[in-house]
């Protein structure tokens, strides 16, 4: 009977998967991860059987929220006592625990039954790429990422930027949209930076509020990031904002979004 036994063992064995969450939407990822935790990728799936796999999520610190969800998306809690309501913005939660956003999302996507906690125990989330050896040795396969990893502007070589097809140059003083300014100012050209700083003094203050209040994106390499010319001097003073970076730039000619926000200032103070 040994033959039948090992066949069954192989059928019922739990595979360990690794998922790289680097610049992935936590909600789309979680839906996919939950699929594997439930075991819906197996032909022997049964809603009442606990046949799900293990999933190891790495780089959970570098997830990408869609739109301005870092600021807008809220996690609610109520202690049960009068006035016990509290809400936490996603950026704040992520700051406290960089594994929490993806964990809560997976917990949400799992079916609400008695198997839920057991399935969550098979989810191993790590903020960085470093994973303990005893976990990493179990891993034998990889889950496909849910979206292509965008390339930051500073990750392109100068050659690539220069060879990118360009139809025309924007005029020096051309403003695309209120609060947006042209992308070239992002480049580490001190002249333009200075000029920009002189032009919009108020813009600099806005940017500062964003940096402290609404965390847009957690960059992988904080040291490599291009400094925002307008707030470069102040960043070094504030350790909280030392690693902050604006929305990733997918194109060379896209302007950096600077979100003016009175609200963001509020939220920043609240927490």
């Amino acid at each position, binding site marked *: 009977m040994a033959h039948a036994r090992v066949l069954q063992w192989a059928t019922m064995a739990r595979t360990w998967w690794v998922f790289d969450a680097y610049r992935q939407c936590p909600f789309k990822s979680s839906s996919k991860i939950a699929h594997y935790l439930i075991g819906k990728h197996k*032909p022997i799936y049964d809603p009442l059987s606990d046949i799900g796999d293990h999933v190891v999520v790495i780089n959970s610190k570098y997830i990408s929220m869609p739109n301005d969800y870092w600021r807008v998306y809220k996690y609610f809690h109520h202690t049960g006592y009068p006035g016990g309501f509290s809400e936490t913005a996603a950026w704040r939660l992520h700051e406290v625990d960089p594994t929490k956003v993806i964990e809560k999302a997976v917990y949400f996507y799992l079916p609400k039954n008695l198997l839920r906690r057991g399935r969550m125990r098979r989810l191993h989330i790590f903020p960085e790429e470093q994973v303990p050896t005893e976990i990493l040795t179990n891993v034998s396969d*990889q889950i496909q990422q849910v979206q292509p990893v965008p390339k930051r502007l500073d990750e392109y070589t100068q050659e690539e930027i220069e060879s990118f097809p360009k139809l025309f140059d924007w005029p020096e003083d051309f403003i695309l949209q209120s609060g947006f300014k042209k992308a070239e100012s992002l480049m580490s050209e001190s002249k333009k930076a200075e000029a920009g700083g002189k032009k919009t003094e108020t813009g600099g203050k806005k940017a500062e509020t964003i940096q402290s209040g609404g965390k847009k994106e957690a960059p992988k390499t904080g040291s490599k990031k291009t400094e925002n010319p307008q707030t470069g001097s102040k960043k070094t003073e504030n350790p909280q904002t030392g690693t902050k970076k604006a929305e990733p730039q997918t194109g060379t000619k896209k302007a950096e979004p600077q979100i003016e926000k009175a609200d963001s200032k509020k939220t920043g103070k609240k927490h």
Partner: protein
Amino acid sequence: MVFLTSFLARRFPLPRAPDKQDNFWRKSMWLRISSKFYGRKRNCFGLAIVPGWRALRYSTRARKLKKENMKNLWEIRLNAACNEHSMEYHTFMTSLAQADIGLNRKVLTDLAIYEPRTFQSLVQFAKQRQLEVGLESSTIDSPHGIFHRGLPNKS
């Protein structure tokens, strides 16, 4: 309500009719239904009768629901089985249907679980058919250097 005969009178028994007949048989009918219930509603007729009615209603509804649930389960399983071979569920089923292969979801699921090689050959057939029909894009292999196991081609 006037019953012209005793026959008709017995056809419409009142639940708690204070008649002098032997209620034993009527009660035993309902207690038979409630024999698997939990608690006092299993053995006490007064408590058993209402859950008994409800159980009959549920069983009526479940006759339809069971078919739907099983269909959904087979679809989930077949989806997983097809994805293991980089195939979409709907493409697979359509190919089989067009080729007059009369295997239903249940049989295909059983094949996928107990005879994976048979199922694989069916998938191969479906892929070949897609090629012949001219839908190559659905069966193109992954680009070189991309390793995946049990994942559909999305590239």
